[in-house]
């Protein structure tokens, strides 16, 4: 779940927008370059965006007795890199802000930062880093998708905590409360996203080897 319309002070909206904008621009340029140099991966790019679309629409029940939805950004981050995923996330966030009153236009920058930047960078780092220290690729994909998802909601919690510090506990006190709402709820959902992403990765490994090697996404994986 994203920060709702009007729930961040205007100065915070502007600040998060300013932080996120360069990533969106860099991502858009990267999308253009990838599509121009490798038009054969266009459909896979669309499918990665579709994955974000599906997972963001699935509001799932959690052990906390409340609902939230996964992000779906780990797959695109592993395939195309983090900034391309920023663009895909921005599209989904805009769709939900305009048509579903979910998230918001004023909070778009903040939500792009959590879902489109931190999550994908965490996922990409784990996807590249874990095989380098000896972990198998499926395990790395699982960790990337799970922790990319979870980190998004940790960031959301801190964004709200900075905006609404607790009168007694300050920013950290508020962060604990918001983490209780967002991050704890998200744990089983993040694991679900990890499992689903491994399923898709297995299918890609079977049917899309050419595209994967085009993207260099199979790096470090024995052919």
């Amino acid at each position: 779940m994203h920060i709702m319309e009007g729930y961040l002070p205007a100065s915070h909206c502007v600040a998060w927008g300013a932080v996120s904008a360069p990533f969106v621009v860099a991502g858009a340029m990267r999308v253009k370059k990838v599509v121009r140099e490798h038009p054969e991966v266009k459909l896979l790019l669309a499918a990665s965006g579709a994955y974000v679309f599906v997972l963001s629409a699935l509001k799932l029940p959690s052990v906390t007795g409340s609902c939230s939805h996964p992000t779906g950004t780990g797959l695109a981050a592993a395939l195309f890199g983090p900034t391309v995923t920023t663009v895909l996330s921005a599209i989904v966030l805009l769709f939900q802000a305009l048509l579903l009153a979910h998230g918001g236009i004023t909070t778009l920058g903040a939500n792009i930062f959590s879902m489109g930047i931190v999550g994908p960078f965490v996922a990409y780092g784990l996807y590249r880093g874990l095989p380098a220290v000896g972990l198998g690729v499926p395990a790395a994909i699982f960790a990337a998708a799970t922790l990319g998802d979870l980190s998004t909601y940790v960031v959301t919690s801190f964004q709200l905590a900075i905006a609404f510090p607790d009168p007694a506990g300050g920013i950290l006190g508020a962060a604990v409360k918001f983490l209780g709402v967002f991050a704890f709820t998200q744990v089983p959902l993040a694991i679900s996203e990890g499992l689903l992403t491994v399923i898709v990765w297995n299918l890609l490994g079977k049917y899309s080897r050419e595209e994967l090697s085009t993207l260099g996404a199979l790096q470090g994986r024995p052919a």
Partner: protein
Amino acid sequence: MMKRNLLLLLGVIVLAVGPLIFHSKTAKFSGSDDQASELISTIQPGYHRWALPLWQPPSAEIESLIFAVQAALGAGLLGYYFGRRRGYAEGKGASEGRATH
């Protein structure tokens, strides 16, 4: 691979259905964003929500319609992608098979 994927899918189903059974009597399963806005109003009771969504789905039914459309668009495209790739892989295998005979 199919077997492993089915096991993974089973894991997802357990994670989704488990909370429904576990909390069947007590929980409301409201959205975490609604809970966050409640939390904001307890931390800073005077906070004035200064912007409202430009448009809101007029009812919960319409909202679930749009969520379903979102999921259907995504799932449709994913299905199209894997269908194409699978057809391509099998077509290639078949034509290679013919070439050797």
